[in-house]
Every structure is written in C-alpha cells, then in structure tokens.
C-alpha cells in the first residue's frame, strides 16, 4: 500500500488532465465527464495499481450540478481512491456507463438512475429499480412529495 503522496504522484502521472485533491481521508480524483470512460479503463487495467474493486457508486446533488462519486479499491495493493465526475446538465444529466468495466456498476448505476435521474449512456439495462417511470427522482434536493414526505419542524 502506498501512502497518499505517492498515490497522488502516481495518479498525476497517469492522468494529467485530472484534478487531484488530497481529500480529508482518501485521494480524490476529479475527471471531466467526457474523459471518464477511458480513465476508468486505465484505472482498472493499469499494471501497477489496478483498481479492480468498485466499492461504491453514488451521486450527490449540488443543486447546480450532479457529482457522481466512485470509491475504488485495488484488491492487490489495497490502495483506495475516490473518483468524481461532474454532470453539469441538470435537465438531462448524462454520463458514460462503467458497467462494462466493473460489472457491479450496472446495478449501482441503475440505482443512481432511479434516485437521481442520471442517465448512463450505453448501459445494458437502464430501468428503474424502486419506482415507476414517472415518479420523479427522490434523492434530488428539489424533489417534492407532499403526500409521503412529512417535514418535521426542526
């Protein structure tokens, strides 16, 4: 396992176009959305630290944009990084799928699509998990549901 500085150095060499932050726990990697798919392939298949285990895939709604967050670990070296891509278009958010790289992403992406409405291009089976097609996207910050969500006075 490398320490954080080494890891950041390694990532900087590998992805010169990426913004790399130290983060308060793990190294954080910001990738532009259009470069994400090829970056993911390199992350998975590079020889020195193959990040082959996608722990978690989720999204955060920052009201102006979505940030899709990937937590990756290398099972051989146990290095851990956080990769983020911003999806600027809030009306029709789209990003490339990584389900062909990490299979587990297929289902995490479906969940994110269900809850945030982010479309994953080239996803094999992008259907909603929990809700019907026109139910809205509940984890967006501007989601309103007067019937089921009771706002408690706090």
């Amino acid at each position: 396992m490398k320490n954080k500085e080494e890891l950041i150095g390694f990532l900087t060499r590998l992805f010169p176009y990426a913004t790399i932050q130290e983060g308060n726990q793990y190294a954080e990697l910001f990738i532009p959305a259009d470069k994400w798919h090829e970056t993911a392939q390199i992350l998975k298949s590079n020889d020195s630290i193959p990040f082959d285990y996608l722990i978690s895939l989720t999204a955060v709604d920052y009201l102006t944009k979505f940030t899709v967050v990937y937590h990756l670990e290398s099972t051989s070296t146990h290095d851990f990084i956080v990769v983020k891509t911003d999806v600027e278009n809030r009306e029709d958010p789209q990003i490339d799928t990584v389900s062909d790289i990490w299979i587990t992403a297929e289902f995490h992406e479906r969940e994110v699509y269900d809850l945030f409405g982010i479309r994953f291009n080239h996803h094999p089976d992008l259907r909603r998990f929990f809700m019907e097609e026109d139910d809205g996207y509940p984890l967006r910050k501007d989601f309103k549901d007067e019937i089921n969500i009771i706002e408690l006075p706090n």
Partner: protein
Amino acid sequence: MSEEIIKNIIVREDEDYIVNMGPQHPSTHGVLRLEVCLHGEFVNYLIPHIGYIHRGIEKMSESDTYKQIIHLTDRMDYLSAHMNNEAVCLAVENALGIEVPERVKYIRVILDELTRLASHHLWWSAFGMDLGALTTFFYGMRDREKVLAIFEESFGSRLLHSFNIPGGLMHDVHPNFQKHTMEFVRYFRKKLPEYKQLLTDNIIFHNRTKGIGIMPCETAVAFGVTGPSGRGSGFACDVRKVAPYGVYDKIEFKEILHEEGDSFSRYLVRMEEMEESLNILEHVVDQVPEGDYTARMKPIIKLPEGEYFQRVETARGELGVYIVSDGKKYPYRIKFRSPNFSNLFVLNTLAKGGKIADLVAICGSLDLVIPDIDR
C-alpha cells in the same frame, strides 16, 4: 478478462417458462422477487426485482441529525444492526477527530463479534431449512437466543439496539455482560460440533452444495461480492484486516479464506468465522478496561464541511457509509453502500445453468437480507 466474467446478459424470449419466486416465497427470506426462467428443472436466467420495502433511509437521513440516523441504520441489515450503527459512529468520530475511550472500542468489538455470531446462527438455521433440514432451524435459533439474551440484558432490546452513539455507547453495559459473554462462548463451543455432525459432514448436504454456484475470485471482485460470500471465493476482502477500525488491529485473528468459490466453501467460511469469532471473544472479553463509556460530545454534532467514507465489516460483507457534509447538523447526502446490494446481483451468474434446487442453495449461501438491499 472482463468480457468472460460478464455473464449477466439476459435474452428474453416469448416462450420462456417464467416462475416468479417471491415476493412471498419461503426461500427468498423476505420480499425479494426473482423472475426465474426455467427450462425443465434448469434455470435459464434470473432477474431479481427489488424495491418492495424501499423506505428511503438515505432521503430520511438528510433531515435527521447524526444521532438520529443511527436508529435508521439498524433497520437496514437488521441482523448486523450493531455494525451498521458503528459505521455511522466511526464516520462521525473520524470526521470530528474524536478519540473514543478504550473501553468503548473493546465493547464495540465484543458486540461486533456477538452480532456476527447471532447473524451466522440465523443464517445457518435458514440455510439448513432451505435445503430441507428443518431441525437445524431450531438448533440455530436456540443458540442465537443466548446471544439475544445478552443483548437484551445490556441494551434492552434484542434485535434493533441503537446502542452506539457518536462518541461512544448509549449507556454502560450491564455488570454481568462479560460474565455472560464468557458463559455463552463456553456453551457454544460445546454446541458447534453438533452443527458439524448435523449438516457440515452430511453426505446429502455435500451433494447439494459442493460444486454448486461456483464463483471465481474475479467474478467476486467484479461484482463486488464481499463478506463471507466473497471470501469463499478467495477474495481477501475482510475490512477488519484491510482497513482496521476499533481495536481490530490489536487483536490477532485469522481471515478465513476458501478458494473453491462454491456454495460449500461459502458455508465453510461462515462456519469457521463462527469459530474465529469465539476466539476473538475469548481473547478480548477479559481485556475490557474500566473507564468512560462515552467521549465528551457536544449536544449538537456538526461535521466540518467535507466528505467522509467509513467502511466496516458487517456479518454479510463490507458496509460503506459515505457522508457529504455542508457543515450543518444534518448530512447533506448520506449513502450506504450495503453489502447485500452487491451480493444479490451475482445470483444470475451463479444460478444460470443450475437446477432450481441449486438456486435455493446458492441463494441461501449468499445470505441475503432484503431490507439491506432496498434500504
């Protein structure tokens, strides 16, 4: 390599003989619906449909304080409630830079292992029952009862004890806690050989599980199958070893790994994990130092702006808690990476080509808890 692993492709045809296993079916252990396409006794493909008990815990947590989130995490994987609590607590403690007292760390480890034992008891019971050995259900439940009695004495509840709070424990454990834990360890050491005679060595059981649902290590990694299910394929994913928390770095214990990756090796991993948990308990229970049961905390916890990720090992695999804080007393976004969510979707790959009875054996060996999938 990845092309070979992706066997998740499903081709539907009009004349498929579809059997819906679930939402109410004895072997899915909850409201999980498996759309199974059969060809005679053989499974062609299988599509899991989830979301029958989706409660929106992540959305609810966005309007709860960090203390209030704890009791929601209980209700995800209700069998490893303690570990779920601990994940949020550790995330908050790490974010605030709080050092919890040693006593808390040790008690948390004991509770972790007791919860793991109770969870594996239930899994063993249900797995036996899935395969038709109904007596195992009662033997497992009988021994689980002893653990639950310890819980009830100390925390007042048996299953959903929101016993952790950020900074420590809700209150101190019962004075008899250590004594009763030791008694349980001694009791269960005597009962474990019975499990072996009744199920592990049984020839019918061997026939039902050996070579069934073989998951190579690459598949486990690709699907993110963690916990005992992943370790049954040789995927060294024990968070207690990879990213130790609490006092797990001070305790010596084995990470159980089996290479075969079939249902039987997943079974063996859990059986040996039970033994290992007993070892840990035996080792730790006398070392609990005296002291406070909680660190000094402000009444209102506000995390500094930033993002936090905490991994813990629950009874079913790796639970990740991802908190995005904007400096307020509520999390801006909280995400639970639940182990069962990832573990479920490998089912199609494993069950394809097997018999419908194998599907039950595989489903049981993955040890799915449905509320954890839906959250």
